[in-house]
């Protein structure tokens, strides 16, 4: 009798425990891991224009630095302004509907595209493209991965609480690890302003 009770207790107890473990483990990974990126914590957005890096690089034969370059004063040009796009896209270059829409919505009214920046950093971060490109001689891929080869822009996943992008953003820890690895300075004001 005693033996029976003991085994029953043991069995039932572990079951609840495992159930609880499995349940919360699943909930945690599903709702809070950014792999699935589901509400309520995460939200998804689509870029306002279905820009294809692939078309520009492979088909049009452009280089990264045609649009993203280091200015003479050492600052990074960032995402090109609509003027830059309009240099080629005053008239449609292809036959896609996206391009026609892009010209209709942004180029003609001369309106800046509200791009969603995958690597948007907090407001007190200073990032020097100059130092990473010219001193560390990094390739764009080191930080931006395959961003320059995609055909459709990846879905923009962001946290609804903090409003920061999730997948492609580099967090401070990653910056610091890399700086450590390459023996680069790691002081507050190296990257903060």
């Amino acid at each position, binding site marked *: 009798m005693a033996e029976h009770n003991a085994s029953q207790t043991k069995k039932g107890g572990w079951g609840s425990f495992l159930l609880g473990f499995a349940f919360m483990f699943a909930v945690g990974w599903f709702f809070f891991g950014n792999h699935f990126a589901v509400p309520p*914590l995460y939200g998804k957005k689509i870029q306002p224009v279905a820009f294809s890096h692939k078309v520009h690089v492979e088909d049009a034969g452009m280089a990264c630095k045609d649009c993203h370059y280091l200015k003479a004063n050492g600052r990074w040009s960032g995402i090109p302004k609509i003027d830059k796009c309009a240099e080629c896209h005053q008239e449609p270059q292809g036959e896609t509907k996206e391009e026609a829409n892009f010209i209709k919505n942004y180029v003609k009214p001369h309106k800046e595209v509200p791009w969603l920046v995958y690597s948007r950093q907090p407001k007190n971060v200073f990032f020097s493209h100059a130092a990473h490109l010219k001193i560390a001689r990094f390739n764009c891929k080191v930080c931006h991965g395959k961003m320059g080869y995609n055909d459709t822009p990846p879905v923009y996943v962001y946290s609804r609480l903090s409003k920061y992008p999730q997948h492609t953003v580099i967090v401070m820890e990653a910056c610091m690890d890399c700086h450590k690895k390459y023996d680069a300075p790691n002081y507050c004001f190296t990257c903060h302003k």
Partner: protein
Amino acid sequence: MLTRRGFLQFVVGGALGAVFSPLPWRIADELVLFSQRWTPQGAPGDESWCYSICQLCPGGCGLKVRKISERVVQVEANPLSPINRGVCPLGAASVQYLYGDKRRIKKPLKRTGKRGEGKWQEIEWAEALNLLTSKLNDLKGSGATEGLLCIDGSVSKVMSGLLKKFCYAYGTSNYFHVNADVGASIAIKEMQDFNGCVGFDLENADYVLSFGSQLLEGWGAPGNLQALYNYWFENPLKPKVKVVQIEPRMSDTAAKASEWLPNLPGTEALVALGLAWVILKEGKYNPRFTGDADFERFKRAVLEGFNPDKLEEKTGLCKDDFIRVAREFCNAKHPIAVWGRGKGFNSTGAFEVLAIHSLNALVGNINRKGGTAFFKDVVDEVWPEISTRQPRDLGKFIESVGAKKVYAEIALVCEANPAYKYPVSFGNALQNVPFVVTFTPFMNDTALVSDLVLPTPFYMEKWEAITTPRGFSYPVFGLSCPVCKSSYGVKHPGDVVLAVSKTLGLKGLPWDNYRNLLQYLVEKIWSKGKGCLLKGNKKVALPSSPRQMWSELTTCVWANPEAVSGGIKKFDFAPSVFAEGIKRPVWSVEGKSEDYPFTLIPCEYLILPQDLGAAPFLVKQLPDTVLKGSDLCVEVHPETASQCGVKNGELALLQTPLGQARVRVFCNECIRPGIIGIPVGLGHKGYDEYLAGKGINAYTILGYNEEATGVASYVMNKANLVKI
């Protein structure tokens, strides 16, 4: 079936499961990011630089303006400017002036309530111009054109010239510039029969005798004086100059001068003549201007009446100082005596200037290297019809308007703030002026009591020409172009004046807009072919076309260092001003000494501009010995304070024959005993919450003293300090 044990195990298991999932870490991380209290940040954009000229005072500092996209974010010195090497605090605060929404006026305002009540109606420019034109037209139609009173505070001589021309064409002689040094122009006119620019070649001087001029705190061209200070004292152990500051209170200038001689307030003329006595007695004067009958008269009068022995008590300086300084002065190679009390925005006495300038004449240092320089400003030369009349005293005129001795129908105030500078008399005068129109970028004290307020652009938003900075020793001309688009509904006062005169059909103002006038002047300067372009210290020949000249002038300035020619027509040591002034060579003060045992003097600070209210950054920087809470602090010697029974930091009642005010007491060894120093530049009614209602307006209790020559100015008052 759920047992208690089962439930607890589920919870523990769940907790453990959660720990092995991103849940707690993500939540913690997100909460950290979420709870950061991010404050508004500057929007990023492309950086660009452009040139401008500061017009917050008549100093004309060249500026380099930093812009991010279309936003102005910082000002620095223009390295090509011959005037300044850095900026002064006012210039540095330009961005706050530019974007101060609560000070700037957004649209033309028409008064709807009672005067000064603060009820306004925003109207369109067309309506505002109609209103102004019809008022002016009515007055012109009635024939009483002298009823137009124009109070000008423009920093640019071109704008002032345009207003003068407008007044003459309209038919009124009542044009006043708030910063005109009436006394000096009378004295110089009588002594040298000259009317034009007075400059001081301080750069080449080696002995500077300053009669209360706060050289480093806003006198002359502040940016230039600061740069000169660096030049003079490049090696402080071997300075290029000796600066002697004669002033009752140790201002910053006195603190940085080689020597400080604390005289009694208002005795500058006596001190100068005491020094002249020593020079005359010892026969050390330069023969350049001496020997005439007028000199003999001067000499006799000075030797008779101004023996330093007798002056010791009157001036508070000892005889030895007189003799030593006088000897140093005439033994120096390039000595110069400088007038203009404080910042020089209040008139100097005519007799005072005569006394001080006679020192310059005694050492023969006029129109010479390191001396006083007399020349025609370029604008006066290319546009001669604007410089015909002597400046008159605005304060007295306003008083007579208040007393109904003079008729005034319309007051046109252009970028000036007479309601602050003449708080009592302007208030009285307003009752007899039915229509007051104010051109101003800021809601200042005068705008508050006006009937029509017309917003003008801030200097970064307009085309303007800057001529010879105050006190500069040769003519200069530069252009300041707009660096940003105004976000307010402003119009250039020059454009308005030109448009109005066109509608009124006035003659002699043929320009369509203000820019055309500037182009006209640039062409004239170019076609005269004199002078050169100054790029830093480099002299560059004039460009080949007026067009090129125009574009060059937006980055550097035109100057004519050779404008000062050696000879002057005449020099009269003892003109009629001398005869009048010698009767009573100090300023008249009302009140009995028994009731008011102390003397109240104004203290001027560089960070406290007067007509133009101090920007928030400047107010922030005021020491708590000037402003504490909303209480103004007066500066007294500890001895004086103990006489009154008040302690440092305590509240007291400052009484003068003109009224009383509640102040705090700041005890300080840097002021003569028996003297109370009151900061000027606070107590504004207008502007924003950063300035309005803080402290008191010193001009309400300072006396508007009169010299025997009839020139009046704010110099001092009798006062008492009573413990509350």
